[in-house]
């Protein structure tokens, strides 16, 4: 198969040079469009065995965002022939689970952004001039992005609590050393939070509005709100992500996405009727 890597407006790239040799070993040709990405010079792709060319004569065009092409296409979201967002949540499919890989980066980024905008110290510090911290962090939504945010804030020493509408999440939140907050306590915790990081988003569902502008206005002075999911919080926030929040860390997001893409092509090459491939096919 002739596989073209699309030049696209997203700061991420669908295939990094390190994953080119694996595709060549499967018998494919890899073509990159000139000036492909700011992350890796074209020369790195050529050194890895790719050639410069266009998507026009490709059998498969790989991209992060949906692309226009006359051939088969692969992207994170529809429309595309293969949509990685539709990967089933099974152990076997994890290697191609781009939702997980991108959510991890997004959650980590959101937590760090909130922490860096917060003027206070994150962990507890007992000083001769008085005791500082710990910061109170609240994470709403505990999917992969939320767990990534919780883990990052726990490492930083904040006192982390979290809520998710799925009941199974209480044990998952506790497993990171954070405290689970019941639904009826969320409003109080929002008001008392120093850092609020929201990550509630499900594939194919509208992003739920969880925090109103009035609730944000009633938060403590200096508190920081980061809406990773993009749409969980009304009004002004320190940063609003969205479906492409992971693009804020393009090199890492691309490295992971590229590994997902290469794994998907490996499955597709071995068996076009593979259950994971079929689940992603549109």
């Amino acid at each position: 198969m002739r596989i073209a890597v699309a030049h696209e407006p997203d700061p991420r790239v669908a295939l990094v040079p390190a994953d080119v040799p694996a595709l060549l070993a499967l018998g494919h040709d890899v073509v990159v469009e000139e000036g492909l990405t700011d992350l890796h010079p074209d020369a790195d792709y050529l050194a890895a065995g790719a050639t410069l060319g266009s998507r026009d004569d490709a059998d498969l065009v790989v991209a992060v965002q949906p692309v226009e092409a006359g051939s088969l296409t692969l992207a994170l979201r529809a429309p595309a022939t293969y949509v990685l967002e539709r990967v089933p949540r099974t152990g076997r499919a994890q290697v191609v689970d781009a939702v997980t890989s991108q959510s991890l980066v997004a959650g980590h980024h959101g937590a760090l952004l909130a922490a860096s905008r917060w003027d206070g110290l994150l962990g507890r510090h007992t000083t001769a001039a008085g005791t500082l911290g710990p910061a109170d962090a609240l994470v709403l939504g505990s999917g992969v992005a939320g767990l990534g945010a919780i883990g990052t804030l726990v490492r930083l020493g904040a006192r982390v609590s979290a809520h998710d509408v799925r009941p199974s999440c209480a044990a998952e939140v506790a497993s990171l050393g954070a405290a689970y907050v019941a639904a009826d306590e969320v409003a109080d915790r929002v008001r008392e939070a120093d850092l609020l990081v929201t990550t509630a988003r499900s594939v194919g569902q509208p992003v739920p509005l969880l925090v109103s502008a009035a609730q944000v206005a009633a938060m403590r002075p200096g508190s920081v709100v980061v809406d990773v999911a993009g749409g969980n919080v009304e009004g002004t926030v320190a940063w609003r992500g969205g479906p492409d929040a992971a693009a804020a860390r393009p090199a890492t997001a691309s490295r992971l996405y590229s590994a997902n893409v290469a794994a998907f092509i490996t499955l597709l090459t071995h068996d076009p009727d593979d259950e994971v491939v079929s689940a992603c096919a549109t």
Partner: protein
Amino acid sequence: MRDLSLDLTGAVVVPGFGLAAAQAHHALRALDAAYGDTWLHLVHPLAGRYPGHLDLLLDPAGVPWERRVGPEHDLHGATVLAVGANDVLTWLAVEPARLVVVTDGGPSFDGTHAPVLDDPRTTVLRGDAREVLQWMLAVRQPTTP
């Protein structure tokens, strides 16, 4: 609870969500130290509920990075201690010489069941991971005086 007579020196630990759910990472590290820091810790990329979950816990517990390995580590002929990791065992396709499983009997992430769990040579220690690991430390007899 059955007697644990086999020697776990040099074992490979496979931790999973059950270790995290029980917050048993410090108990694991204490047992690791009791075996003279001879253990390797195999952190599978799918272990836990998000990538990095187990490392998040092993870091503050003081399990050194140089004794952590990935799923490529060859378990053939090894003694394996799986802690709350029944789902990880299905993904590893383990063929260890000895397998000790600590499990609370909870469901695996994707409903799979590792055949090795039914092997009569497998030692199953049932219970909360932290309590089981603390018991293992309490009954551990030093191998050298």
